[in-house]
């Protein structure tokens, strides 16, 4: 079993005014994997991340981060964090920002300076190293934020909306960077709304609603029940329905849907079609996207109605 980077149980947070942001969350993120946490606004994702980063005090929590109890300050030296809508001191240059936060993590200048230079190059803003952050665009600040999350050479990287404000090329670069981090054996925890981005790089995801985890696993695991084969025919789709169990017509008389991941199960339908002179025009294995899965789960949820961060 892989070593957990985050292994928490029963995470609860009730803000003043009896607002329950977390209602007993169990979560495990392994080393060497990219884990995505999804959820609508007000689901409690940021609260959970802030608890892990010691910015918010939990009402209750058990478990560990990198093998140490949650909120163990020295452990944070091995954790990198990119907050959502972060705000760096605008009077500092990009290089100074990295040196500042590296020093706070206890890293000496002689060690952090070359690392900062490498990271600025890695995120594509090396030419701006000595420019003040106040003059940076949103995308550049985001790149700097990612560099800052990595400046202490962390074993666990927690990123809240890492591609927010970044152009498509930048997103691809960030995605590749995350995959590199994973290959280096680090754990990456991502909090994001960009489901297509997560789908491309996450090994496992969890969906949070109203302070509770509603689903967790690999994308394959989560979408298994909704996979199907769509068989497009020239006519007579209705006559093929009774061949296999749970088969349905999804377009009037033209398309049959079979809820299975096993290709063998659709062979009898193809045989029947051929025997009946029905032309099979197309067979499409369908796997729902993460977005479809997410929307299915949250469609009855009113965003931010009951659960709010402070």
């Amino acid at each position, binding site marked *: 079993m892989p070593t957990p980077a985050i292994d928490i149980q029963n995470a609860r947070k009730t803000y003043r005014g009896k607002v329950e942001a977390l209602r007993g969350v169990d979560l495990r993120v392994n080393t060497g994997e990219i884990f995505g946490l999804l959820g609508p606004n007000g689901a409690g994702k940021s609260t959970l991340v802030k608890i892990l980063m010691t910015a918010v005090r939990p009402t209750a929590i058990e478990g560990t981060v990198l093998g140490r109890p949650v909120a163990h300050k020295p452990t944070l030296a091995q954790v990198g964090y990119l*907050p959502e809508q972060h705000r760096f001191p605008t*009077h500092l240059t990009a290089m100074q920002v990295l040196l500042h936060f590296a020093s706070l993590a206890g890293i000496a200048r002689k060690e952090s300076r070359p690392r900062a230079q490498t990271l600025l190059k890695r995120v594509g803003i090396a030419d701006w190293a000595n420019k003040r952050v106040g003059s940076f665009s949103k995308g550049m600040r985001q790149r700097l934020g990612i560099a800052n999350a990595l400046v202490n050479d962390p074993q666990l990287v927690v990123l809240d909306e890492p591609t927010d404000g970044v152009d498509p090329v930048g997103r691809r670069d960030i995605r590749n960077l995350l995959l590199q981090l994973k290959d280096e054996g680090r754990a990456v925890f991502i909090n994001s709304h960009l489901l297509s981005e997560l789908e491309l790089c996450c090994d496992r995801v969890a969906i949070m609603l109203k302070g509770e985890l509603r689903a967790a696993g690999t994308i394959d695991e989560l979408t298994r029940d909704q996979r199907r084969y769509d068989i497009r025919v020239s006519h007579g789709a209705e006559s093929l329905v009774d061949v296999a169990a749970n088969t349905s017509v999804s377009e009037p008389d033209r398309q049959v849907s079979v809820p299975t991941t096993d290709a063998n199960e659709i062979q009898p339908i193809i045989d029947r079609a051929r025997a009946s002179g029905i032309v099979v025009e197309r067979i499409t294995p369908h796997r729902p996207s993460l977005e479809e899965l997410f929307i299915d789960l949250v469609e009855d949820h009113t965003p931010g109605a009951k659960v709010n961060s402070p």
Partner: protein
Amino acid sequence: MMLLRQVMTILWETQIGLRNKKLFWLTLILSFLAGLIPLAIGQTEYGITLFGFDLEEATFGSAVVEPKVFYGLLFSLIGAFWLTWIASILGLVSTSGLVPDLIADGSIELTVSRPVRRTVVLLSKFLGGLLFMAGQVCVFTLASFFAIGIQGGGFIAELFLALPIVLVFFSFLSSFCLLMGVLTRSTIASLLLTILFWFFLFLLHQVEGTGLFFVASQDIKIERAERIETQLEVRREELATLPADSNDADIERKRQTLVSRIERAEQFLETTANPQRESAEDNLSWLRPAHQGVLALKTVLPKTAETMSLLTRQLADSGLAVEEEDDRSLESLITTSDGQREMEMVSERLEEEFAERSVLWILGTSLAFEFFILSIACWRFSRRDF
């Protein structure tokens, strides 16, 4: 080692942030110019000069006051005004945003997610504000030090006493501003509340001083009546020792003088001193507890005015201020019927009373308050969700 590195890092970032503001440089330039004021004021044998123009003010001529004392006095006047009011207000305006900027959304998470204790972060910011003020005071004092030296007042090392005194004074306000910053998360609110608190302290000092003035004036009225009675007793005894049936003209003259003085004193006692004493005793029955109450409140709060007056006091202790001649005689108390002398005595009593307040009482209780305020700020900051 790691703690020291973290503190130095926060101080470094704070100083860059402050230096990045125009107000920082404006403040330093103004402090420098204010420190050069002694260059505009010269001392001649019989007066002073202002920008080279003679002003006939023999009291301050070098024939009366030594140049070192004159310039020491000048520094204590200019320094007390500049450092207490202008520099402190500029310092507060410059540093009041340190904590609200630190705990702004998106900023604080970056800091608290590092392995640094929140208390260390907050206190380092506080220290950063004090360092800014120290820079201002150093610039002002250095400029004054050289200006006075060039003007012939000598290079007075005691001027640098201003640095610790002003820093302690500023730290009282700065700690309160820090707490307000933590509670309100607003630069404007914390600045305004701090100035309001400062004004309250100033007002409290004035109320306490006024209360002390009235208490002292009532005490003096009672003491005067008691002294007249004592004097009367002495005179009566003196009269009793004179031979009753002496034909000696000198003795008779002395007797008549004594009798006349006793009659005048008895009349003064009966018509003026005793009624005043009774009235004073009535007044003191509520004035003294009221004053004690105000003093008790003042004791637990920072004593900004007294702290800054330590600068003048320390310069005086170093022989750099003119001490007034102490002239109090019982006879003048008894024979002077108008209030002028009484007012002088009350003023002297007040000065004595303030001078008797020890440095330990002034600074000790004020620093205890500061410690309390910083403790609350640290506690709140450490427990707060961001």
